């Protein structure tokens, strides 16, 4: 078992994840070793397809890895069952998504109160908590509005309030400013920074927004599924695609197609002397 620092809140070891895009294997993470400490405001930076979202999803228990270890608050989230992960997420992790993803039929405060009710709190208590957090994110006066009556920035603030309402240890935010204009995005990041400092909640944010990168207490650069020190650093390809990209990750239809596809014999497999021209 690897040594865990008391303040280490997220730790990954040799994390691998590969997707199949049609019949092509696509390695998203290639052995990520990562350690994030309590209260950090960490930004995962990198181009599209560098593995930021995949890493966030695995750390958040939304997705499994092919190989490696992901210890969150000392527990290996990859070894948990589905319902255990759901409970773990509810208790310890808050999510902020790029597309806000609020429940469209609930008001802002009901959206925030929803997660508190999932935790078993009473309706009244949940609504009080929701009001508190909506005030914290400076939209307390908009609590009765439904998502479609709020601007993008306001919706994202509701999403932040929802993420904070269960008082999680970690908040994972996947491109939280990508759908916002630069001013609104800057305000949102300032808000998240302020909450990080006042509450001590650890933030792990994936983004390629320069403002977000600038706000980071630590910037982790990802390129082709590797952590790099600088963008100029050359990344090495995975040792073997067959090892890093298990067939079980392949979509079922693709697996069937692959199974029934007629295999051609390669030149090396053809026995010498069987060729007409030999």
């Amino acid at each position, binding site marked *: 078992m690897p040594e865990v620092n008391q303040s280490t809140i997220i730790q990954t070891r040799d994390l691998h994840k590969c997707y199949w895009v049609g019949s092509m294997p696509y390695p998203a993470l290639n052995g990520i070793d990562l350690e994030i400490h309590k209260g950090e405001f960490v930004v995962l930076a990198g181009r599209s397809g560098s593995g930021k979202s995949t890493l966030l999803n695995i750390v958040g228990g939304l997705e499994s890895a092919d190989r490696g270890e992901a210890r969150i608050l000392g527990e290996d989230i990859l070894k948990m069952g589905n319902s255990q992960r759901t409970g773990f997420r509810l208790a310890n992790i808050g999510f902020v*998504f790029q597309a806000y993803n609020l429940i469209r*039929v609930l008001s802002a405060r009901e959206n925030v109160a929803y997660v508190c*009710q999932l935790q078993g709190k009473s309706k009244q208590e949940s609504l009080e908590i929701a009001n508190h957090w909506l005030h914290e994110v400076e939209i307390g006066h908009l609590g009765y509005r439904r998502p479609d009556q709020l601007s993008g920035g306001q919706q994202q603030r509701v999403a932040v309030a929802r993420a904070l309402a269960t008082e999680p240890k970690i908040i994972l935010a996947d491109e939280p400013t990508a759908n916002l204009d630069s001013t609104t995005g800057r305000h949102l990041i300032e808000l998240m920074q302020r909450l990080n400092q006042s509450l001590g909640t650890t933030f792990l944010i994936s983004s390629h927004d320069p403002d977000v990168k600038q706000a980071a207490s630590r910037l982790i650069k990802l390129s082709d599924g590797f952590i790099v020190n600088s963008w100029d650093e050359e990344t090495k390809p995975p040792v073997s695609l067959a090892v890093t990209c298990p067939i079980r990750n392949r979509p079922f239809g693709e697996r069937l197609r692959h199974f029934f596809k007629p295999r051609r014999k390669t030149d090396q497999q053809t026995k010498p002397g069987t060729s007409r021209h030999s």
Partner: protein
Amino acid sequence: MADAKSQLNLHLARVALRNLLGHPRRTLLTSGAIALGLAALIFLWGFNEGLHRNMLGNFQNSIIGALQIHRQGFFQHPDLSLTITNPQRISETLQKHGVTRYSQRLDTFGLAASDHTTQGVMLIGMDPLNEPKVTELGRRIGIGRFLHPDDSYTLILGATTANNLKVQLGDEVVMIGYDRYGAMIAESFTLVGIITSGEMGLDSGMAITSLATLQEMVDLQGQVTTFVINVDEQTLPGLVSSLNVDLAGQQLEVMPWHTMFPVMKEWVTLHNGFLYLFLGIVLFIVLAGELNTLLLSMLDRTREFGVLMAIGTSRRQIALLIVVEAVTIGIIGILLGTLLGYLIILLTGLIGIDLSILLGSTSRFYVDPLIYPQLKLDHLGITASAILMASILSGIYPAWRASLLQPVEAIRNG
């Protein structure tokens, strides 16, 4: 904790209801389809019930009554040796059970003879005072009149028999038969009434005279062969059981109408069977329609389910959301359908449905031209419950599918 859990379930139910309200057109279309199916079924059940009640009522009121009492074996082999020798005891028993609508008869076979021809008939002696309390035979006499208490040797024939004999009102008809000792007898009767019901059983092969006349003719004063009783369908089974107990050991047979004429009961059962088949078809349509709506709704909200799972909603709770939606759509449909069906029954029950346009003469089936639909609560209960079950079933598959979603896949592809 249990309180918080029930509050959470309530909250999830509220989210499900908000989802339905958020898509009013979809919700109303699906509920409306269920409502129309249910209303159609309610109307069919009501029409069926009205038709059956009318038919059975007419059948019983025409001549057989709801219940008859004879000497053991008389119904199978009507013979004057099988008479009820002490009808007073049966009258007392019936009065003890509060039965007031009953009449006594003497039935035998005879030969009706006119100047032209003869025809075999069932000769029935009826009590002119009590018979109208039991049957509506008097109303089916199209020519002439029913028997009077002071009539003597008067006769009523069915229209077909009268035609065959070529007799008219006031003509003389000779009835030939056997008395209690087996000796041949012949008496002259005056024709006072002709039954023109249109029902084959009544219009042919039957001759009716007064009970006293026939008793005198066959020398069976004070004796009868049949008690005909008129009670409603609800009272009938209880009365049959009570009479069987009270009249036990007296060599009597207590026969409700469906024992005497089982084919009528079987016809009603068969007819109801067709309706159950129709119910099955409607249920299938409801199931398919609601399943389609819920699957579409599920596809539409795949991302939302993914997010709900990501923020801590369990798979069971996601499934619960969908099942609550399915049940709510079903309940709305059932309420609307019941209301609509009930209004249709109420309206058609007031004005009636004229079958003569479709069937021409309906009297041969013991059916009046106007049918008044009636709603029976147990039919409504069965139909509504079946539709509710179909709604729950139609929610289970989408709920199961939604509960299998992977949060990331759902958010990415939703």
